[in-house]
């Protein structure tokens, strides 16, 4: 599984852990130091208890009134004697033996009956399941220990009765857990197959189901057995369990309490032993659970921090601080992306050594004139300095010993009022790139390993946390993909917008509320005043995304980073939201970085396009030119995949093959394995982003000529067919 490649788009980046060969359960438990310690302590205690008859111990019941209440370490009595002069050490070992036997027996009985009930209920389903589970629920409606007391009250005090009581009250835990697993298993094919082969239900339960639920039984057992030992001891402590002369740890503690003030050790020592047993079992139990339940394995639940980690020795691209003035589409040509592992020093030499950089005038607003203007954008954006100038951005995911290069030396430039479409398949690194700008890639495992995030001349990767916080939602705001997941489910949308406003503007609640209402009006939400109180799940998908947009506009941002903002919406709503976003950004002259996998969407909103593949920009240029005649074969294939009226099944995932794993990028062109035009030289060395005709620059040794179809390509009708609507394109 290529972890980063599949998960990087959502920014989660944690679910796709590589499934290597798993070490054995036992090895996993031993690896966990605490669990191993638990195992060792428990082992010693059990050993002593088992060996009690052959150990050189005094008779635990031999009284010696002359020698009563002897202190610790007295002669012949290592742990002293109790109120009747009995040897405490011997009593401790024998008592431990009783407690362990009783506790483990109770656990096994509970596991046996509970699992049986769970298996039958889960497998049979229907009526019997309902009745059984109602009964179990009813048992759980009693406070845990109270039920045990009631059972002892019925059966009468005594060690065996206490054992039964504790076993019975623990049955529900097993029944519930096992039933849950069984219900899932009962629907699986192998059970069907067993049924068809004529096996009876009992045989199926025994030979097909039981082995599969065994881990759950073991986990439940390991988490409850400590409790059961504790509780049986507790009942004895209360005088409801072991009756004299029989003694377990609980009754020893209970007896010792009578002389607690004169000889505290008599009660404290058995208590300490109970604690040691339970603690070691719980340590071991946690280890077992972690080993058997992969969901809980450490790291799976890593907490993303406030901001993406920036590597200390961050690799820097060439010294072109004025590079902010570079035309975006030349960026990659100027700085060939650095191969991973490149030292910062080398990176700098590479950068300043490139001829393109040398050609540039030091402060060249007009440097890009030679490359032609940017069709479709207004003139102000052509001359203004960029809002965003990303250079050589490298974002990696570090998982275990693997390093996934999600964003592998990316250059991006966006000018005021301009919309740059960042396009690629899922896993291309486009979302990771976008989320890196404001440090929103989850860390761990994300690390910004290199490059510069230039925002109006300031390197954000260097900026202090405080500065980042001020920019987030202020000058740079985000619109995310699925507004149901990205809006807080428990707060009203008005509240969430007000919060966004007040995070950056010193407004009183009232004033902020008025402003929020205006924002909702602005994004054309009808009945804004009422909708303020709505919770996200009470709104339609389209309205929710309008709320997100309103929130993004709350503090008049200069740049909006929109990560697939329309992907989760259905087609008509998608068009509306897109139009709204387009209108608003034009009205307010806001720059937009628009991430999408869909060239159809790109044609609606973007002035320029950057196509990403395997963590790199492979082609950039003005939207019209790219859509008409892309130079890179990958771009061509993506464009050809845009659904055409009447052919709804032709979608992006129709590009055959998969991108290379981001932790094992091949040398040379990363697209080579899927490219219809591949030749031997493609796989050799680094390929730079070279200028092609017009505004285009592509990272390809054998680019397409204008109008050229993909010979032998997977889509035979070739150029011109899969055009997205919305923009006039002539072949």
């Amino acid at each position, binding site marked *: 599984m290529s972890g980063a490649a599949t998960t990087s788009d959502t920014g989660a980046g*944690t679910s796709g852990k590589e499934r290597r060969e798993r070490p054995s359960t036992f090895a996993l438990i031993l690896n966990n130091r605490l669990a191993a310690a638990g195992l060792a302590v428990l082992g010693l205690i059990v050993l002593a208890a088992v060996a009690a008859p052959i150990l050189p111990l005094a008779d635990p019941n031999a009284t010696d009134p002359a020698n009563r209440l002897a202190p610790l370490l007295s002669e012949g009595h290592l742990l002293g004697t109790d109120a009747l002069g009995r040897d405490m050490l011997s009593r401790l070992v024998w008592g431990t033996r009783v407690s362990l036997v009783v506790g483990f027996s109770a656990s096994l009985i509970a596991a046996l009956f509970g699992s049986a009930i769970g298996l039958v209920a889960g497998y049979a389903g229907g009526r019997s399941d309902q009745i059984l589970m109602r009964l179990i629920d009813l048992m759980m409606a009693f406070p*845990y220990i*109270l039920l045990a007391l009631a059972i002892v009250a019925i059966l009468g005090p005594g060690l065996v009765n206490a054992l039964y009581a504790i076993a019975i009250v623990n049955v529900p835990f097993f029944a519930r857990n096992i039933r849950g697993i069984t219900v899932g298993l009962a629907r699986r094919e192998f059970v069907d197959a067993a049924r068809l082969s004529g096996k009876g239900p009992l045989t199926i339960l025994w030979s097909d189901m039981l082995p599969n639920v065994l881990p759950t039984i073991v986990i439940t057992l390991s988490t409850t057995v400590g409790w059961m030992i504790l509780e049986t001891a507790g009942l004895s*402590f209360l005088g*409801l369990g072991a009756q004299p002369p029989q003694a377990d740890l609980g009754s020893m*503690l209970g007896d010792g309490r009578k002389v607690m003030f004169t000889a505290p050790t008599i009660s404290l020592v058995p208590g300490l032993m109970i604690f040691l047993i339970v603690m070691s079992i719980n340590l071991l139990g946690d280890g077992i659970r972690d080993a058997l339940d992969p969901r809980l394995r450490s790291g799976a639940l890593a*907490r993303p921090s406030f901001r993406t980690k920036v590597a200390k020795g961050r690799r820097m691209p060439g010294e072109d601080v004025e590079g902010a003035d570079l035309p975006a589409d030349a960026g990659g040509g100027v700085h060939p992306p650095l191969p991973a592992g490149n030292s910062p020093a080398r990176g700098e030499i590479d950068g300043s050594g490139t001829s393109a950089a040398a050609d540039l005038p030091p402060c060249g607003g007009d440097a890009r004139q030679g490359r032609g203007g940017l069709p479709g954008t207004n003139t102000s954006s052509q001359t203004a300095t960029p809002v965003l100038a990303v250079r050589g951005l490298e974002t990696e995911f570090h998982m275990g010993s693997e390093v996934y290069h999600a964003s592998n030396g990316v250059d991006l430039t966006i000018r005021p009022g301009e919309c740059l479409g960042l396009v690629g398949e899922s896993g291309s690194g486009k979302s990771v790139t976008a989320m890196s700008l404001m440090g929103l890639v*989850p860390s761990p495992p994300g690390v910004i390993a290199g490059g510069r995030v230039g925002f109006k001349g300031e390197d954000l990767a260097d900026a202090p946390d405080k500065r980042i916080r001020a920019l987030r939602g202020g000058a740079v705001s985000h619109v995310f993909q699925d507004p149901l997941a*990205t*809006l807080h489910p428990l707060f009203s949308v008005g509240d969430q917008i007000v919060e966004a406003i007040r995070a950056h503007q010193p407004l009183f609640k009232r004033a902020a509320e008025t402003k929020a209402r205006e924002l909702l009006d602005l994004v054309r939400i009808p009945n804004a005043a009422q909708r303020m109180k709505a919770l996200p799940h009470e709104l339609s998908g389209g309205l929710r995304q309008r709320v997100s947009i309103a929130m993004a506009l709350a503090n008049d941002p200069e740049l909006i980073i929109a990560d697939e903002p329309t992907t989760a919406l259905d087609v008509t709503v998608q068009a509306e939201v897109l139009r709204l976003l387009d209108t608003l950004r034009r009205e307010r002259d806001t720059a937009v970085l628009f991430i999408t996998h869909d060239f159809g969407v790109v044609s609606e909103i973007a002035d320029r396009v950057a196509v990403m593949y395997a963590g790199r920009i492979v082609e950039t240029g003005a939207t019209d030119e790219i859509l008409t005649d892309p130079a890179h074969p990958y771009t061509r294939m993506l464009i050809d995949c845009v659904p055409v009226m009447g052919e709804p099944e032709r979608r992006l995932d129709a590009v055959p093959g998969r991108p290379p794993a981001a932790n094992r990028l091949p040398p040379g062109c990363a697209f080579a394995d899927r490219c219809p035009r591949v030749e031997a030289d493609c796989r050799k060395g680094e390929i730079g982003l070279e200028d092609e005709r017009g505004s285009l620059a592509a990272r390809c040794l054998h680019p397409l000529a204008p109008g050229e179809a993909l010979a032998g390509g997977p889509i035979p009708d070739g150029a011109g067919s899969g055009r997205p609507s919305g923009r006039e394109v002539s072949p």
Partner: protein
Amino acid sequence: MTATIAKRLLAAIPVLFGLSIIVFLMIALIPGDPATAILGSYATPENVARLNASLGLDKSLPQQYLAWISGVLSGDFGRSYALNRPVIDIVLERFSATLLLAGASLLLATVFGLLAGIVSAVRQFGFADKAITLAVLVGISVPSFWLGLLLILFFAVKIKLFPASGMVAIYGGGGPLDILHHLVLPAITLALVATGVIARLTRTAMLEVLRQDYIRTARAKGLTERRVIFRHAFMAALVSVIPVIGIQAGFVLGGAVYVETVFQWPGIGAMLVNAISQRDILLVQGGVLVVAASYVLFNLLADVCQTLLDPRLK
């Protein structure tokens, strides 16, 4: 909202009904002759006969149940033979003490459990997290009846900061401060396990929530980390922790048995233990019923709180 609460209340009725049947069956399930079991083998034949009549043991089980439950509903739980008082009086008197102890413990457990869980999650894998995780493990492994003794030996005997037992001082006690003074040690003892469990689950819930997209949104809005954690993450995590607190109410109510015995707190748990030893079955029955019913109501309360917090659950 009221409709939701009413619905939950209605749903609790069958549970209470089921509880009452189980508690009622306690007598029927006693092996041998219940009257002798209840009164002990030294009971006079007259007393046995009287009890048999009052229990209606000659009638069918459903009839017996009807007679019993109508008595219970009008506050008649029968008479305690050991104490020779109406069960209801004893139970109510004792239960108020237990409620005070259990309530205080649950409050402690909730506050400290949530705090520890949050800190642990926010400092995941850091020193604080490791320390808390270990402390939690210790906390849920310590037998409360042993911890109680330790606390008594240290705080009551050694440094004489808190009283060793009882709920009020024998001379001139009884004021709220006096009760509070007596409450500290037992409440801490009882709270320990619940604190550990709540802390553990809060940590998991927080870690789960902190990975959600809406947390990224909150950060993308430029909120302070404090606000992200204590408002956005915590509120969402609380939704899944509240039922756990409800369940812990049951463990606290049950665990009170040990703590009340150790600290001689005049609660219902200590009473139950005595009643069981003395085979005072009617008293046990009444006590179990009241505690179990209060637990159902506790869970109901947790349920309602959860719905109030997360309207999606409606």
